[in-house]
């Protein structure tokens, strides 16, 4: 990781049993994870899975109902100036004042953020050829997204949260936006959390992954560890899940054979592998889709997090 020690040694984000209830409904529950500084985190899940709830608690706009949340080692209290200053945020619809010029927006940003770096904001506009005197409503959707990103980066916050930042953009504007975002990550070591529906585009962006469904965390960890912990097995149809060397995450049965995405236990795979089995590595998109298709009540544990951290072994939790 090239961004070690950007903000001390504290992880960018640590949650334990984090949850938020809206009336009688839990928007998110039992969320426990530790994200290292410098990571680029992909946050994936269907609508209503709890992505925005998690993001808004992280940026300090929403108070957790239960559990702990630390951003760079400090407990976050919602709406405190300190919490808000530590996180840059790019919202889904890039809320900007349409009648303001780009320069006006930057003026507002400077007034509201003590750590504002005007040079960062204007240099990005120069590089992108967006005139500061242009009104927001005269900009394309892609340019508006770039203004939002420039404002979030000019805060010089060590954590940047983006909620579906490119869902309204055309493919070229998306690519341009992601280029700017990744270049900023390379330059400053900012930790990034980006919520997105577009799984195929996330692979190149993120080295850390969180999958949410129905307000529950299905999967969280470094992408490489998660991929290494799963295999796609092709087995005779009669093979029962219990005979597989690990937990079956997703199974597709054909007439004679079944393909099963399995969270493998390496020792059991070595001991149990049969000659007629096909064993293949799992791709990013395949892994995400398998977990998205799981019922949200299914058993979850967290092999990658356990492997990445010394300490007590992970429990297999049935919910």
């Amino acid at each position, binding site marked *: 990781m090239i961004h070690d020690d950007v903000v001390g040694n504290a992880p960018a984000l640590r949650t334990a049993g984090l949850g938020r209830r809206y009336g009688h409904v839990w928007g998110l529950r039992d969320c426990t994870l530790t994200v290292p500084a410098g990571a680029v985190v992909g946050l994936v899940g269907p609508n209503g899975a709890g992505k925005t709830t998690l993001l808004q608690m992280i940026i300090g706009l929403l108070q957790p109902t239960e559990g702990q949340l630390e951003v760079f080692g400090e407990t976050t209290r919602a709406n405190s100036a300190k919490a808000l200053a530590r996180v840059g945020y790019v919202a889904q619809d890039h809320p900007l004042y349409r009648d303001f010029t780009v320069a006006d927006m930057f003026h507002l940003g400077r007034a509201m953020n003590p750590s504002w770096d005007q040079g960062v904001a204007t240099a990005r506009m120069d590089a992108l050829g967006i005139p500061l005197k242009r009104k927001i409503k005269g900009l394309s959707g892609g340019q508006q997204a770039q203004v939002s990103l420039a404002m979030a980066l000019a805060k010089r916050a060590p954590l940047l949260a983006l909620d579906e930042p490119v869902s309204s953009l055309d493919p070229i504007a998306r690519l341009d936006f992601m280029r700017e975002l990744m270049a900023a990550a390379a330059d400053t070591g900012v930790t990034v959390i980006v919520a997105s529906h577009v799984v195929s585009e996330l*692979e*190149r962006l993120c080295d850390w992954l969180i999958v949410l469904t129905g307000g529950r965390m299905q999967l969280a960890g470094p992408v490489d560890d998660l991929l290494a912990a799963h295999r796609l097995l092709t087995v005779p149809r009669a093979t029962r899940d219990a005979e597989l060397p690990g937990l079956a995450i997703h199974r597709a049965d054909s007439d004679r054979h079944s393909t099963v995405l399995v969270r493998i236990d390496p020792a059991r795979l070595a001991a149990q592998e049969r000659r007629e089995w096909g064993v293949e590595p799992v791709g*990013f998109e395949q892994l995400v889709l398998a977990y998205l298709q799981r019922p949200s009540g299914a058993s979850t544990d967290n092999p990658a997090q356990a492997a990445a951290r010394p300490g007590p072994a992970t429990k297999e939790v049935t919910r």
Partner: protein
Amino acid sequence: MFRFRLDSASGVPPYLQLVHQVRQSLLLGYLREGDRLPTVKDVVSDLAINPNTVVKAYRQLEHEGLAGGKPGQGTFITGTLSPATPDTHHALRASLERWLRDADAAGLNDDEVTALIAVARNDMRKEKV
């Protein structure tokens, strides 16, 4: 300057795609010892890719002895890739071409050829274990 590309539909992890492209370019002679690889920042801006991924690919290349970083100057190709002598390489390619022609004559299409190779390789791997 060497330029990387990414195929998001390939299922191969991005860092491995970068490593493969350097290896392949070395084999094909598009990259030679002393050539400079693009900076991490250049690759990141070009492909909209996670910087850690590029760093990981470059570390892997360094680990394999194929590239090395010079402080302040960038990452350079330091090794050559010769899994076999040019003669062996040539002979293997010739026998592969003969085999592919046989497969073609037997009516196998590209997918069937690829599947057959995958099955054979899988079996060989299991025999080794």
